[in-house]
C-alpha cells in the first residue's frame, strides 16, 4: 500500500507515492536523493538526521514521510544562499567545529534551532541546547565556539 505525499524539500516540491511506514529521513535520502542528512542511530539519540520542518528542527528519523505531507523541509543542502555559506556553516568551518563531518549536518541544523529560540546563548545554553546531538570527534568544544560565533548574526533566521 502506498499513499500520496507532497513535500517541499529545499524549495522543490516532491509529489510521491510512499509506504506509510517510510521514515522522513529515508524519504529525503532515498526518494529525493538528498543524502546530506545522515542516519547515525536507530533510537533517535544521535541527531545526525536533524532537519527543519516548517522552520522548526526535527529529528527526521522520528517522523514518517506522511507526517511531513504538505510541509516545507529544509536540509543541510538548503541552508546556504547559493554560493554564500550560512553563518553557521561558515562558523563551523572557521572554528574547526567538525572532523569526520558525519554529525555535522544534524549539528548545524540543531544549532540553527538553538539560535532561533535563543539568539544570544551562553556557552552553557549552547551545550544544553546541543545535548541531543552526538559528536564523537570534536569533544564539542569547537562546536560550542562555532555556535557562539554564529550567534548574533542572522544564523537563526530562516
Amino acid at each position, binding site marked *: 500500500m502506498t499513499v500520496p505525499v507532497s513535500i517541499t524539500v529545499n524549495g522543490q516540491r516532491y509529489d510521491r507515492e510512499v*509506504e506509510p*511506514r*517510510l521514515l522522513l529521513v529515508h524519504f529525503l*535520502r532515498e526518494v529525493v*536523493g*538528498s*543524502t*546530506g*542528512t*545522515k*542516519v*547515525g*542511530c*536507530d*533510537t533517535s*539519540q*544521535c541527531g*545526525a538526521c536533524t532537519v527543519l520542518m516548517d522552520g522548526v528542527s526535527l529529528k527526521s528519523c522520528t517522523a514518517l514521510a506522511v507526517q511531513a505531507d504538505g510541509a516545507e523541509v529544509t*536540509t*543541510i*543542502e538548503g*541552508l*546556504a544562499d547559493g554560493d554564500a*555559506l550560512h553563518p553557521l*556553516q561558515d562558523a*563551523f*568551518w*572557521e572554528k*574547526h567545529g*567538525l*572532523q*569526520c*563531518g*558525519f*554529525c*555535522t*549536518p544534524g549539528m*548545524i541544523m540543531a544549532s540553527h534551532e538553538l539560535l532561533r529560540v535563543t539568539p544570544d546563548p551562553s*556557552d*552553557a545554553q*549552547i*551545550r*544544553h541546547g*546541543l*545535548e541531543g*546531538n*552526538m*559528536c*564523537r*570527534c*570534536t*569533544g*564539542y*568544544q*569547537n*562546536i*560550542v565556539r562555532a555556535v557562539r560565533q554564529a550567534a548574533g548574526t542572522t544564523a537563526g533566521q530562516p
Partner: protein
Amino acid sequence: MSTRIFGSGIRRREDPRLITGSATYTDDLTLPRMVHAAMLRSPHAHARITAIDTSKAAAAPGVIAVYTHADTEGGLQPAPCAWLLPDSDLKIASYHCLAKDVVRFAGDIVAVVVAESRYQAEDALELIDVGYEPLPAVTDPEAAAAEGAPKLHDEIDGNQAFHWKVAGGDVDAAFAGADVVVKDRIVQQRLIPNAMEPRAALASFVGATGELTVWNTTQNPHIVRFLTSLVLGLSEDKIRVIAPEVGGGFGSKIAAYPADFLTMFCSRKLNRPVKWTETRSENYQSTTHGRDHVQHVELAAKNDGTVLGLRCTVHAGMGAYLSTAAPGIPTILHGLMLSGVYTLPAVHEDVYGVYTNGVPVEAYRGAGRPEATFMLERMMDVLAARLDMDPADVRRKNMIPKFDDGHEVVTTLKYDSGDYPGALDKVLSHADYAGLRAKQKAGPANGTYTGLGLATYVEICGLGPSQVAGAIGFQGGLWESAIVRFHPSGKVHVFIGASPHGQGEETTFAQIVGSELGVDPQDVKVFHGDTDNTPMGWGTYGSRTTAVGGAALALTARKIRDKAKVIAAHLLEAAVEDMDYEDGKFFVKGAPDQSKTIGDIALMANVAWNMPEGVEAGLEASTFYDPPNFTFPFGAHLAVVEVDAETGAVALKRYVALDDCGPQINPVIVEGQVHGGVVQGVGQALWEEAVYDEGGQLVTGSMLDYALPRADLLPDIEVLSTVTPSPHHPLGVKGIGEAGTIASTAAVYNAVMDALRPLGVTSVRMPLTPERVWQAIQDARQAKG
C-alpha cells in the same frame, strides 16, 4: 621551511563539502541495478544451530536471494586474523562470515538476505526460521579463562587465544628488595567505539570483467583489498577498494569484517551491486569493541617513592573470534609501553588473550596504550597515597630526565625524544596546582569533595619500521607512500596510501607541500582512499598518518625541489651548486632578482621545451618511506573534579591537557584532536561501558543505554603544548590522534579517587557512575564502622 604555512591554523580544505551536505559517504552511494543486503544475526550469545529454513524469506516480496553458511562453502574463506603474534602459542579460531553450526556471540551472522529495497530485506529477515540449542555463555575474560568455563571453540583449550609475556630486569629481586608493594585489580571495561557513521559496504562485481569494486567504511582500503583477495579468492588486480568519505573510525574501521565480505560475495553471486549498511544496534552488537582487560598489578618501591619494579597479569577479552589486528593490541601496543615516562628497572607481565562470547575486540583509540598508561598512572597514585607523598612528587621522582636523541627502556623500546618533567611542570604551574591543593586541604564544602588527578604518559606512534612489523607478526609492512605531481599550472596533486577519515590530512598534507615547495596550500589537492588511484599504503591508525605518511610526503617534496633546482639552474644559466632556494623561488646565490618560481619550473618541466640534458620531463616524484623507529609523543594531563558525597555524582570542573607531538603543522587541528581524544577518555572514566548480562546479551545495546559523552557534561578543555621534535622524522612530527584518550581516563579516575580519599574509598570500578561512587562511599563508611 616556510613558517607561514607550516604551523598555521588554516581552515580545513575538506570542510566545504562536509558543511554543505555535499560529501559522499558509503551509504550515500547508489549504483544502477543496486540491491540491498541485510544480515540475520544470532540473538544468542552461544548456541548450536539445529536447523535453518529460509524458504519463507526467499519467497517474500522483493527478495532476490538468501544465503546461509552452506551456500558460501568454497566461495568465501573465514575473515582472517592478520597479526600473528609470535612466541605466544597463538590459536586462531575460524571466523566464518556466516556461522557454521555454532554461533558464538549475539550478533554472529547466520544468514544474509538480498532484496530490491532495504525495507524488504529487513522484513525478510523476520521470516527466516532458525532452530537454536542454547549453550552456556561467558563474557568476562577472567571467568572465561577459569577452569570449567564454557568452551567456545572445540579445538582450543581454556579459551586461551594466546599467552604473551614481556620481561625486563630482575623483577623478583625488585620485589624482594622493596620497602613497599602496592597492588590493585583494575578493570579496563569493554567499550563501544561509536564512530558516528555506521559501517557500510557497497560491492559491485562485474562478471564480464571479473572485477570487483568495493566502497567501504574503512581506515585502510589497501589492507581490505589484500584480505579480500584471500577471502574471496580474487587476485588483487581485480579488486578496487574505495574508502569514500569515512565518518570516524577510532579503530572500529580497521578490521575487515564478515559483513563486508558477505556483501561482496552476494554481489559476485548476483552479478549486480549490493549495498549493506549496519543499523546502530547492529553496530553495537557486531562492530568491534575496545579494551576489556582485567589487570592484576603490583608495584614495588622504596620508601622514598623510587619505583623498583612492576609485575602484572592481564586477562584480555578478545570476544568470540580474533579480529584483524586484535592480538597485537593488548600485547605489543600495551606490554611494551609499561615503562611509561619512568625509569622502571624491572617489569614482568603475562597477558592472556581469552575468547569470550562477546563482540570481537580490536584497536580502540589509543589501542593498548591507554590500558598501559592507566595501569601505571593509577599505581603511581596508589603508591603516593601509601607513602603520603604528593602524586606529582612521586612522578617527578621516577621520571626519565629530558633527552633528545634516544633513550632505551626496560621493555627494549628506544624512545626518540622527550621532556617529561618539563611537561609535568608546565601543567602544574598553568593550573596553579599548589593553589588547588591548598584549597583542597580546606576540606569539603557542602558535602562536595574536590579531587585532583594527574596522568603523565608517553605513547608509541608512527607504526612503524616494517622490519619490526615482521618481527612482531604483523602480516604486512608499515611504511607509507606519497606521490606529488605538479601540473603545468603549478597546481599540485598529492596521492597518499594512508586513509584519513576526519583527521584533516587533506589540509595538513597540503601544508607540508606548501611549506616545502612554496605553493599555496589551496593549490594542493590530496587524494587518498582508493586502491586504484593511490600508491599502496597501510592505513590510518596508531597515529601514524602524519608520522609516517607525512614523512613520505616531505621527502617527496624535497625530491621535487632537487629536480626543480636543476631545471632552474639550467634556465638561469647557472651551475646547480650556485643555486639557492627560498619560499618557492630558485635563484642564483647573491642575486635573488634573477629567479624562477616553482610555478615557472612546473610549466617548463611539463612542456619540456628547454630542459637540462639528461633530465626527464614532468615534475613528479614518489617516496615509499619506512621509518627507522617509532615516534613517542608524550604529555601530562590534570583533571579537577567535584564529587557530591550524598549522590555520588561526579562533575568534571577543569581539564588541562599538555601534549607534545613535536612541531605542529596545524595547531587548530592538533587542538581538535586533543579535545576529541580527551573527551573519549573521560567517557571511559565516567560513563561508558558495554555491559553483557550473564547470558551474554548486550544490555547496552543502543545509544539509549550506552552513555556517550554529551555536550552539556563537559567543561572547556585547556590545551597546552611543548615542542620536542622527533630526531628521526624529516619534519620532527610525532602524531596526536590518540594522545588525549591515552591520558584522560587515568587523569579523571585519579581525580575522583583523590576526592574520595578522605572518605576511605580506594578503588571503584569504571565507569564511575553516581551509583557506583555512592555505593563505594557507603561501603567505606560501613567498613570504618
